[in-house]
């Protein structure tokens, strides 16, 4: 049972990292960034390529994370920035970006999954009757570090303060003279870094393929909805909850339908609180 819970926490950390990236972008721009899956994919491939080219893993991971940041900012500069006043256009743009990113990966690397080797592949951590592969431990450690760093940035720095403000009331932030363009780019930059971390941590457990992030992204969206669109802490809490729920469902009921349990949780929450846990209202997309 503990093993299942621990695995659930691992899954939850992954969800949290991806969901926080999504919710940051949503808070600042009100855009559901479906293209985030493509960012994760390209970051994973970048890490894989760097590793295959002979770079030590730590360096390859940095390459991957940097790639995630770069691609994410690129999506903002090239596409999302131009629809800031037209949120109904977001799904089309998001899908367009996702198609471009996923299929670029497809063109460059082919469609079969590739496995990524890491130095901690063979490591097995055991404590209290529970065993965790080194890979999963690395993910949890990375996730905790990244989210702590983000928390510090958001609460202690000027930029972070501005970002929180923009998420709460974009107009009021603009009236104070806060440069909005910079905030948008910053949100995408951080989301991209997180995507890179998710890719680096996630790829070794599953396989690197153009479609590797689809299910995770969907679950991450459930997390964002559950936690409240725009709420970082909601995303973290929601991620862990969803991870545990899916983990439990997968272990005790049916592993094939793992994400279905996430769906059940989503349905439950939306039925009881149509605006998500935090109660924000969903805005019109079309």
């Amino acid at each position, binding site marked *: 049972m503990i093993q299942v819970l621990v695995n659930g926490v691992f899954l939850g950390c992954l969800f949290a990292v991806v969901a926080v990236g999504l919710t940051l972008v949503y808070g600042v721009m009100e855009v*559901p960034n*479906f293209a985030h899956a493509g960012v994760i994919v390209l970051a994973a491939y970048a890490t894989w390529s760097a590793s295959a080219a002979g770079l030590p893993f730590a360096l390859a991971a940095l390459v991957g994370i940097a790639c995630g940041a770069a691609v994410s900012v690129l999506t903002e500069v*090239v*596409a999302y920035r*131009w*629809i800031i006043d*037209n949120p*109904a*256009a977001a*799904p*089309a*743009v998001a*899908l*367009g*970006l*996702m*198609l*471009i990113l*996923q*299929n*670029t990966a*497809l*063109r460059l690397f082919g*469609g079969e999954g590739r496995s990524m080797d890491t130095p901690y592949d063979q490591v097995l951590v055991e404590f209290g009757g529970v065993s965790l592969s080194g890979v999963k431990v690395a993910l949890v450690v990375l996730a905790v570090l990244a989210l702590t760093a983000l928390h510090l940035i958001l609460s202690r720095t000027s930029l972070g303060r501005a970002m929180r403000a923009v998420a709460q009331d974009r107009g009021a932030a603009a009236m104070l003279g806060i440069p909005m363009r910079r905030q948008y780019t910053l949100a995408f930059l951080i989301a991209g870094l997180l995507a890179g971390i998710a890719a680096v941590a996630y790829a070794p457990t599953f396989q690197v393929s153009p479609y590797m992030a*689809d*299910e995770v992204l*969907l679950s991450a*969206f*459930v997390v*964002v*909805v559950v936690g409240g*669109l725009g709420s970082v802490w909601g995303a973290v809490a929601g991620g862990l909850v969803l991870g545990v729920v899916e983990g439990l469902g997968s272990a005790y009921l049916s592993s*094939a*339908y793992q*994400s*279905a349990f*996430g*769906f059940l949780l*989503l*349905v439950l929450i*939306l*039925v009881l609180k*149509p*605006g*998500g846990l935090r109660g924000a*209202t*969903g*805005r*019109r*997309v*079309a």
Partner: protein
Amino acid sequence: MRKHASALGSSALLSVLAYLALTGLQGDQGQVALLVVVWTIALTGLNVILGLGGYPSMAHAAFFGGGAYLSAILLEKGLSMTVAAVVSVAAIMLVGFLVALVFSRTRGQYFAIGTMFFTAVAFLVFTNAAEFTGGPTGRPVDLGYSLDATVVLLAVSVGAGLAVFHLISVSRFGDRLRAIREDEDLAQHLGVPTARVKLLAVVVSAGFAAWAGVLFGQYNGVIAPSQFTFVQSFLMFVALGLGGAGRLLAPVVGALVVIGLTQLLNLGPGVSQIVLGVLFIAVTLLAPNGILGGITALTRKVRRKEAVA
């Protein structure tokens, strides 16, 4: 009267064109024709809830696949084609009713994500309930009607579907849907039974999608889960928007563009998708009301210039 004539006339014309395309084109082009026709029927249904009502339903591929799978399963069990088709469509409409009920109090982004997740779960069912669905590799579909009859049904459904959409659009139901799209709270205040209207719209859209799925299964002969993913739902959503959500002929334009590009551009794996992606972004930025909206705006500009000159 003229509005009705032109709408019904184009619907009939499109039926004829569909028939000609399906019977005339072979091979790859024939496959494209089938998909365009099937998508037109399905998207017409989506046009009711999304186009008129403004609700971003991402469940459409699930209803589509549901119709295909259910009719295939029932046919195999020995039911006649007509019964299988009617039961499948009715059953999927019931599913649509339940989905609408569950998400009845959600709006906007939440509705989109919720319905998208429903499609993902439907995909899981299609993939894992191998006993019925044949698993990830799909299953064959017995032929219910003759191929010729199926072609006629497809062609007729195009026109009939568009005609039904037109009738909905000009009816009080259509007005109410548009009111909801404009400002749902206000509509509620003004006495529009929004819950009922939305429910009906989703059920209607599910019916269209299921019927399209039934016909698709028939003509294609084989169905697989990969044809009914949440990405498909997303593509349908964007295709309709590309055409110009809410307009009568948007399904046709959207289907032509999306299917045409994905199937015909064989420049290598994935390239057509990249082009499609670029197109989505370009059209969104340049023609926010879809291609049909863009054309309307252009003709208005041209007419204005002519008036001045």
